[in-house]
């Protein structure tokens, strides 16, 4: 088996390779100290009492102290305040983890038993290796072709489950050159523990070189493949792609990121998951003003790669 050497994995926490990682570790450090103090109070108090009030004779008399409202209030209130403080701090950091940056470099990740398939916009594909430029917002658009997986990069302190039948996303901005482990953190069967990839952070030049080399192998860019499929699967006969003209179905021009109104009056933001659902299960939600059952369902007729290509093509219609 191939194991990559991660320079700093030997130390207590993996190296911090993003700004978020530093923030997480700060909060973790704070929690460690608070926890240590709490344990010293509880366990220390216990040990102190145990020795101080050790039984001396068989008939020791003890004090009858049934409660103390003031004390009990204090030791309910102080933990509450600490917990809420920690919660708020956590919320602050978590929000940054979850707020997807605009204009990030997007890479498609497909989890499958038991490997990570990577595809860049230019059509270059790799397995178990992601190369990204340093100091750049990167967004991974992820899905699975079989069971649950979870994309975990310890050095970035990020983790996100990868779910069949829908997209999930995760983002990072690496500020350190080097190689980092990708683990699968959600149990996925026999070789779950071998589903290890590496994430390489390189300079922007090296990144571009890496991609160019990939393109020389003759792969079509993702969106181009989507365009071909769009024609092949006859989407084009019902959807216009370069104007607002309505054919059988609504125009998809400039649709991505906008809102669609459904026939029950609800508004849906057109994101990757909406596109995916519209293609695979068109009758689940119907766009207002269009008949139900006209768009054929493509469930089972497109694999994950083709779906990614179509979605990318529609995203780029602007």
């Amino acid at each position, binding site marked *: 088996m191939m*194991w*990559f050497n*991660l320079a700093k*994995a*030997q130390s*207590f926490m*993996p190296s911090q390779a993003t700004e978020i990682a530093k923030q997480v570790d700060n909060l*973790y450090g704070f*929690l460690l100290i*608070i*926890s240590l103090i709490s344990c010293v109070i*509880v*366990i220390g*108090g*216990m040990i102190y*009492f145990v020795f101080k*009030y*050790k*039984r001396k004779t068989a008939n020791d008399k*003890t*004090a*009858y*102290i*049934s*409660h*103390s409202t003031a*004390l009990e209030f204090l*030791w*309910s209130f102080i*933990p*509450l305040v600490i*917990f809420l403080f*920690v919660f708020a*701090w*956590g*919320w602050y*950091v*978590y*929000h940054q983890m979850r707020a997807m940056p605009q204009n990030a470099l997007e890479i498609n990740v497909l989890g499958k038993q038991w490997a990570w398939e990577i595809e860049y916009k230019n059509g270059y594909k790799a397995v178990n290796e992601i190369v990204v430029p340093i100091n750049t917002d990167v967004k991974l658009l992820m899905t699975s072709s*079989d069971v*649950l997986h*979870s994309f*975990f990069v*310890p050095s970035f*302190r*990020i*983790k*996100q*489950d990868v*779910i*069949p*039948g*829908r997209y999930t996303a995760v983002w990072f901005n690496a500020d350190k050159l080097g190689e980092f482990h990708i683990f699968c*953190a*959600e*149990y996925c*069967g026999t070789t779950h*523990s*071998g589903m*290890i990839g590496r994430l390489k952070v390189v300079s922007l030049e090296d990144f571009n070189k890496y991609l160019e080399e990939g393109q020389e192998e003759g792969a079509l860019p993702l969106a181009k493949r989507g365009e071909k499929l769009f024609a092949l699967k006859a989407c084009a006969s019902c959807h216009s792609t370069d104007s607002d003209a309505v054919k059988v179905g609504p125009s998809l021009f400039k649709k991505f990121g906008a809102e669609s109104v459904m026939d029950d009056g609800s508004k849906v933001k057109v994101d990757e998951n909406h596109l995916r659902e519209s293609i695979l299960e068109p009758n689940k939600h119907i766009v207002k003003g269009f008949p139900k059952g006209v768009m054929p369902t493509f469930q089972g007729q497109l694999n994950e790669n083709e779906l990614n290509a179509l979605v990318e093509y529609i995203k780029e219609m602007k």
Partner: protein
Amino acid sequence: MASHAHGDNYINCEKGLWSWLTTVDHKRIGLLYMITVMTFFLIGGIMALLLRLELFAPNAVQGVGGVLKDGNVYNQVMTYHGAIMVFMVIIPGIPAILGNFFLPLQIGAKDVAFPRINLLSWYCLMAGATLALLTLFFNKVDTGWTFYTPYSIRTGASTVLMVLGAFIMGMSSILTGLNFIVTVHKLRAPGMTMHRMPLFVWALYATAIIQMLATPVLAITLLLLAAERLFGVGVFDPKLGGDPVLFQHFFWFYSHPAVYIMVIPAMGVVSELITTFSRKVIFGYTAIAYSSLGIAAVSFFVWGHHMFVSGQSETAGIVFSFLTMLVGVPTAIKMFNWVATMYKGSISFDTPMLYALGFLFLFAIGGVTGIMLATLPINVHFHDTYFVVSHFHYVMVGGTLMSLMGGFFYWFPKMFGKMYSDSMARMSFVFTFIGFNVTFFPQFILGAMGMPRRYFDYIPAFEQLNKISTVGSWLIGIGFVIALITIIQGLRKGEKAPANPWGSKTLEWTVQSPPPHHNFDVEPVVTGGPYEYR
């Protein structure tokens, strides 16, 4: 006693295997549970040792350290270890053994409200366990005890059998809960008001409420899973238009409260132990009693903290993190109350007290790491790593199992009318306690370093700590072997136990050891609280 010519206690009043298999005496049913649970614990424990052995070295599958044939075998053993320990050991553990035996005694009742249903619940456990373990003879289940979809829908078909087994074991849990609730409301002795009940009874009562309300949700979930496998109903499988994450919502809606089914009874036992061996009234009786109910109530609204990275919305994550922090408060209150109870007490170091102190120590660590896991961004890093594995072992083993052992050694003289060797029992404590920390503390660090759980193999960087952890598991093993020897020796040659060897104040100690068949020859009349050490 007139009707029972044979003997003067519940053990010798009737003889023969049949009399045990058809008994409706809550004490005898408690012992049936004891034998069952101890057997399952032995099996689950041996599996744990195998898992640790496999993890002794990386690349063990091909290399020297490999004890299990391959990754599949590891995954299967991991699944059975989890399922056995959760469904057959920790959940029935304290309520069904100690609760069955002592709840009626502690409130001055002759039996539980529905003695026959009580026996039925034991048979449910046996039937469910048999069904679940039958899978060992077909293709073995490898889903992990959580049965996450869609993996559980795609892997070997015997998952259905295992899931049905868990379903039937859930019935057992519901029946026990029902019995306890009615018993507490209807069968208290004259003068035994709710606020004079021992805290162990309060804890069992709170637990019973969760058992009654949460377990049906698990039952439905597992049935849906079985239906999906057998009939292709598309609830969870995205290929059939289902939602795999929905399963997690259902599953944790039961399984988080289930954590408290496992822990609240342990807290009850510890309350008994600490007052008795400090010879002092419990500090903050009302706070401890009601915090059990408080925990039970809030526990239904925190399930999403198992799903912070599952793809649930950011808002859901925030709400669940907040509510989880709230659950921390009543738990903290209890910890402080127990320590305060020892203040100005007369503290002895008998074996049960050692286990209670061990509980406090380990539960404190389990608690603070729980708060860490409730903190959103920390959870993102720790989720599904060994940090979580370590955390829940600190709570479930360090908490529940320690208190089960403590409670068992505390009530042993009452249950069997014999004393065990105190020095041997202490030795078992020392081994398990030290072994526990050696096994599980390194796993916190492994988790922080990023080692995911359910791995049968790992990168070389994780080797040292895994080695330490494996050595620790041997110490725990030795500890339990000593405990087993202590128990067998005590049963065979133990000195005769007096009615009240520890000087406790609760009702079960007012009757002879072992108790008579009908518990109380004269119905007791209660005139004060449970811990009147003056």
